[in-house]
């Protein structure tokens, strides 16, 4: 009885091992997919017309990091532009939440209750020329001061006069002309409005309270389908992750894998046919088999260098889709050969012998009987090799695939980029939002792979059923 129990315990352990492995990976994938969530909100803000950036102030002696979020771009004709926002304005708050980095704004938009379309109050500080006007540095009593030379209409309305020296804004001492406006942006967010200004006018200190910000209601459309579709079908934008697009990389991946398939499949299947059907079992053939097994385990870095030196340089293909496809073909050729050989081995000997008995040559047997029978299994094996190829970044990186292209690749000799490289690039950028975009690209890639694998399995089942009838 105990012996049986031991057996059951072991079976449970083994099952648990499998379960845990799969669960761990599923968890990792899920968490990554969740990290891609923000792109809906990001796209909502981008569609409202606003692209965000980040700047910071360093005040010696304080331990605070003083940041503000300028609107790097405001699209012409967008809802934001319609409300009077313009490039260079600073975003202060969205839906009551202070915005100290772009992700805060996106979170506020994503979190706001409501349906697809939400209208939220947005507080912003118009750019320096509009808020303050012309500033310059002047020397007064041996000290340099930031002086308001020509105040803007808004500043005048607030009570500022030409010649006023700005000493402190919201408690932040002013040491430069640029800093004066930046301090306003930061103070408006951290200390709230109205902001306290300390001025020096004709050797007298004055304190002024001013709310230089503007406020309006902006509508954001949070549409996940639209956000993901935009992500998949637009060109890439290197600075603002809310506008990042995967189209060139996606098409690049597809083209490169197609070229690879056209090259590697016929060669690989032909090689497998030779090794399995024709080659005598001698040392020479064993050597070939050994080399195939070895090539299957080649480090991807080595393949990349081969691609660079042989295809790009020696053969003159440059850093084109063609060279990329050939490089990947080298990588998966051994896999195709091995998988095809396994498939050919499943063909029963009786089938071949029957054909020979009827007078067929070896080639005719292979072409009309063996290959069709083995075809489903060959297909599955080759589709799995596509998966491997789609996910490879290292070989193409060394070959010299580009990381940013302004167009969609159209021809064999075009330069290109691929999805794994795009993930690699986005994952290493510090700006807010690139982690989310990298995660989104991962989701796209994994979905594509899942589709391919599922398709392969379905196809194999369908074809096997047809053949066993």
């Amino acid at each position: 009885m105990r012996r049986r129990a031991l057996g059951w315990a072991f079976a449970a352990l083994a099952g648990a091992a499998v379960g845990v492995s799969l669960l761990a990976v599923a968890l990792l994938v899920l968490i990554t997919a969740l990290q891609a969530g923000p792109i809906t909100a990001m796209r909502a803000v981008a569609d409202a017309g606003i692209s965000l950036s980040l700047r910071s102030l360093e005040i010696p002696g304080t331990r605070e990091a003083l940041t503000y979020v300028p609107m790097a771009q405001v699209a012409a004709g967008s809802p934001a532009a319609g409300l009077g926002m313009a490039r260079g304005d600073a975003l202060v708050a969205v839906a009551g939440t202070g915005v100290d980095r772009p992700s805060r704004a996106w979170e506020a938009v994503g979190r706001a209750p409501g349906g697809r379309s939400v209208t939220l109050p947005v507080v912003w500080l118009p750019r320096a020329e509009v808020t303050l006007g012309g500033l310059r540095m002047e020397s007064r009593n041996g000290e340099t001061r930031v002086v308001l030379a020509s105040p803007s209409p808004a500043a005048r309305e607030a009570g500022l006069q030409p010649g006023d020296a700005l000493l402190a804004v919201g408690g932040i001492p002013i040491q430069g002309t640029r800093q004066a406006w930046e301090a306003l942006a930061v103070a408006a967010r951290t200390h709230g409005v109205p902001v306290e200004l300390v001025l020096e006018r004709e050797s007298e200190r004055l304190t002024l309270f001013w709310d230089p910000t503007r406020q309006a209601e902006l509508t954001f459309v949070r549409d996940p389908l639209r956000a993901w579709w935009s992500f998949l079908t637009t060109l890439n934008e290197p600075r603002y992750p809310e506008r990042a697009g995967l189209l060139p990389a996606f098409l690049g991946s597809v083209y490169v894998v197609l070229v690879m398939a056209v090259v590697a499949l016929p060669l690989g299947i032909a090689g497998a046919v030779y090794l399995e059907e024709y080659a005598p079992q001698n040392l020479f053939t064993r050597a070939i088999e050994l080399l195939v097994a070895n090539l299957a385990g080649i480090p991807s870095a080595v393949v990349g260098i081969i691609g660079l030196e042989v295809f790009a340089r020696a053969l003159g293909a440059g850093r084109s889709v063609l060279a990329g496809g050939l490089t990947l073909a080298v990588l998966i050729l051994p896999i195709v050969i091995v998988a095809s050989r396994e498939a050919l081995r499943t063909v029963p000997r009786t089938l071949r012998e029957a054909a020979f008995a009827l007078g067929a040559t070896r080639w005719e047997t292979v072409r009309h009987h063996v290959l069709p029978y083995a075809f489903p299994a060959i297909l599955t094996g080759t589709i799995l090799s596509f998966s491997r190829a789609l996910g490879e970044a290292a070989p193409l990186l060394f070959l010299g695939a580009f990381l940013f292209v302004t167009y969609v690749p159209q021809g064999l000799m075009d330069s290109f980029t691929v999805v794994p490289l795009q993930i690699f690039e986005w994952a290493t950028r510090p700006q807010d939002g690139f982690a989310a975009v990298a995660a989104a690209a991962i989701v796209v890639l994994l979905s594509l792979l899942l589709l391919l694998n599922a398709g392969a399995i379905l196809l194999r089942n369908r074809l096997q059923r047809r053949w066993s009838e």
Partner: protein
Amino acid sequence: MRHGVVCLLLAVVAGWAVAQPTAPLDSPAILVDGSSTVGPITEAVAKEFAALYPRARISVGISGTSGGFRRFLAGETDINDASRPIKPSEIARAAEAGIAYIELLIGLDGVVVAVSRETQIFRGAPPVLTLGELELLWSRESEGFITRWSQISPRFADAPIVLSGAASTSGTFDIFTSVVNGKEGDCRADYFGTEEDQLLAEQTGADPFALTYFGFAYLEHNRDRVQAVAIDPRHVLIDTPPEVVEEINHRRAQVGKPPLVVVGGKPQGVLPTVDTIANFTYPLSRPLFIYVNARSAERPMVQAFVDFYLSEEVIGNEEFMLDVGYLPVGPEVREATRRIWAQRITGTAFGGTITGFTPEEIAQLYRKHAGL
């Protein structure tokens, strides 16, 4: 049918020209590669340019300045992004290959020395170091010897030193070692070097006794984790303990380096800001270049692209540069750059190295090269 497919394939292969300097004049393609530092600037320019010229097909790679030069000098790219000037062996290869290049200084990167926001190295005082103290911290002679902060100065905590910084294959490493230690590549090896500036910021932010250095862009994005150390541009020591001074100068003498001098007083540090980097009062900044193949420069699309690159909306635009994390060069340097481009002046201003030159001297050399 199969015949037709083969013909089609051949036609496609033959029909599309790869953009190389030898590409036809009306080619809409431009190939750029090189530094991962300058790359983002070129990418941003390419994006803006493509909006104006939809026919353009610009590809930007970031294989690194080294890999970029290898390709550029093999005639495979039109423009090379570089975070350092071209070096002697590369100049020689260009001569061999018959490639004439136009050196354009397009921006500045500040090299920020950073510590955690919660640092305990400076015992509550604002972080400041002289270049001499940095040299004591980083030079090759300090490897294995300078291991505690208190060895550098009694102002600092008595705790083990944790150093990280750029990998030796990085351009930031080049300029840092050149300015701080006097020679490119002269650096202790017992520090954690990596190409990933963002991770340097994150790791240093989490360790109260860590110090690192990286590009200015990463300071902007990590102000909640790290703070910049103010740098006093004098190559002197302030109050280093005498036994340490003696030992380090002994080691320096053995390799022919001048001794480090203790001057006392207080360090007058300069923090890295947009202004201090641009006017060179902050001593650690590095010039960023693009190298244009002179032959490619004959193509109208390349000309339009570089013209746009050098315009005031781009390299003269502080906001544009800050968005990608870099700083514009001052107007005198921009003038020199435009002149070099307008007159297609080939060759380099620096003869293969900028070791030992201050950023200001670098700017002067460049202007001389432009004939100003």
